């Protein structure tokens, strides 16, 4: 974000006031639902009433009930395991494929890139039935692999790395080659360290997307012990917990904390990554 000017020359409060007057209430209205979520999760018996929830007293009863309920702890572990696997594979494959495409090292580089852009534009839901059938044929339905393998290589991540590599000077790699380094050594010792910033963006974005993923985990997995948190939460909300708002909001808060923490910690990289991606 082009905040360089803002740091050296901090704008005064006066002219900012006009924007605060209309952006402030708007921001508040966007954040109130989340305040409601947390308040309801902490209030023992507030139903859906914001006022009663805010009045307190607060305790963690709903969170205790949540983790005592069938499988919620397991859902959380599953979400974390799947996210870790998908993010790691995504970063590794995006680095390799993005690098080679950015350097135009394969014949038909243009066509491979076109295929990646086409995949980006394709509505994923079109593939939900055929992917289900392919996984069934591979005997992978209802396994962790079904939650990981189809998402291990991501077109958007590859595209981000490719764009980044195009902007990197090639001289360092050539110098290393002249010194007799192998392709793999050049990649590992010279290229990978340079890719760190873009790989961080890839990791963060693929974490956010994967943690929140719903449709595919819903249809690829049938056993309760393999469910991820969003799916488990959605299904719990359609059982006897359907109007147990304190319980559901405790679950919602738990499901939101990791993504909110990652977002707030890395907001600069996330927003600038999106800004860079959209310009291409």
């Amino acid at each position, binding site marked *: 974000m082009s905040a360089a000017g803002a740091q050296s020359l901090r704008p005064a409060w006066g002219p900012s006031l006009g924007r605060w007057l209309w952006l402030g209430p708007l921001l508040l209205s966007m954040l109130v639902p989340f305040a409601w979520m947390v308040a309801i999760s902490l209030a023992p018996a507030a139903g859906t009433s914001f006022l009663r929830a805010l009045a307190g007293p607060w305790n963690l009863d709903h969170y205790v009930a949540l983790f005592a309920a069938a499988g919620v702890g397991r859902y959380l572990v599953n979400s974390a395991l799947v996210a870790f696997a998908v993010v790691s594979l995504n970063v590794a494959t995006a680095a390799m494929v993005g690098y080679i495409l950015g350097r135009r090292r394969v014949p038909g580089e243009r066509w491979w890139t076109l295929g990646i852009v086409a995949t980006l534009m394709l509505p994923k839901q*079109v593939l939900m039935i055929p992917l289900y059938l392919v996984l069934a044929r591979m005997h992978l339905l209802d396994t962790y692999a079904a939650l990981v393998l189809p998402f291990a290589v991501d077109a958007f991540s590859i595209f981000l790395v490719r764009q980044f590599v195009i902007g990197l000077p090639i001289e360092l790699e050539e110098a290393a080659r002249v010194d007799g380094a192998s392709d793999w050594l050049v990649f590992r010792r010279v290229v990978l360290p340079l890719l760190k910033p873009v790989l961080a963006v890839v990791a963060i974005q693929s974490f956010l997307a994967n943690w929140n993923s719903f449709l595919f985990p819903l249809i690829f997995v049938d056993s309760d012990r393999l469910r991820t948190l969003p799916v488990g939460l959605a299904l719990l909300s359609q059982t006897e917990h359907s109007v147990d708002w304190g319980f559901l909001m405790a679950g919602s808060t738990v499901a939101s904390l990791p993504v909110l923490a990652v977002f707030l910690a890395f907001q600069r990289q996330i927003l600038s990554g999106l800004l860079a991606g959209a310009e291409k």
Partner: protein
Amino acid sequence: MSATIHRSGAAHGSRATAWAFLSPWVIAFGLFGLFPFAFSLAASFTDYSPIRAGGASFVGLANYARALSDPAFWSALGNTAFFVVGTIPFTTTLALALALAVQPAFRGRTLFRVGFFVPSVVSVVVLSLVFKGLYASNGALDGVLRALGLTPPAWLLDPRTALPAIMAMDVWSASGYYMIIFLAGLEAIPRELYDAARLEGASRRAQLAHITLPLLRPTLLFVLVVNTVRSLQIFAEVFVMTRGGPLHSTTTVVYYLYEEAFYRFNLGYASAVAYLLFLITLALAWVQMKTVRPAGPEAR
């Protein structure tokens, strides 16, 4: 992988390593992209169902004909169209207004950029559960309306208001994301253009009409296409909040697809519906490209 391939000297490295590096994409694209895509096209011409004895038989275009003559399909398509037409103008306008507001430097700019984006990072399941609670009868929203002396509708329980209630949530939750995309477009417009315009005495409004908006056309196109493709696939909201009801008033195409495929196990038929959705998506994206692009000057 490929750590064993060694070859030094060549300034551009070896072909074999290049292919090894590309292989993850080739495998994933083939196995989880191209092959399923072709496979579902083939399946859409059969009556395949895993719960019925015997194999699948070729039925030609019967699945497509069935979809096009099924009132439930048309109703789902109508709901989806209503969703697209009823959300995208609002989301786009709000996102653009927010982007214009948070672009120039002012105190607290980052707070707003980050704050408006928050709904975009939270799971749709969570957003849907929260709004289901807010829309609950005698819930928080009803309380506000009663305090204002209004009679609240039944929201998700009334076929007339259920879909608009979900759409309102979508505008609320999606605007921040498209704000950031618009911001990228705004930051890419060369500063010099504004400097020159100011020298010639152009007003703020004139700068917006003659510089900002025309140069934002490619971004606008991107936002419209991406948001349309996304809106045509609305599913989790419906699954969590209404299960397609009441009276199928919130059954979107993808929800219909899900029920046909994984409740009734009509996988051949559902494949045909998926292909129809794909064709509709392509057609809409194409129309948007044709209408938004030609008048625009060559930007960037």
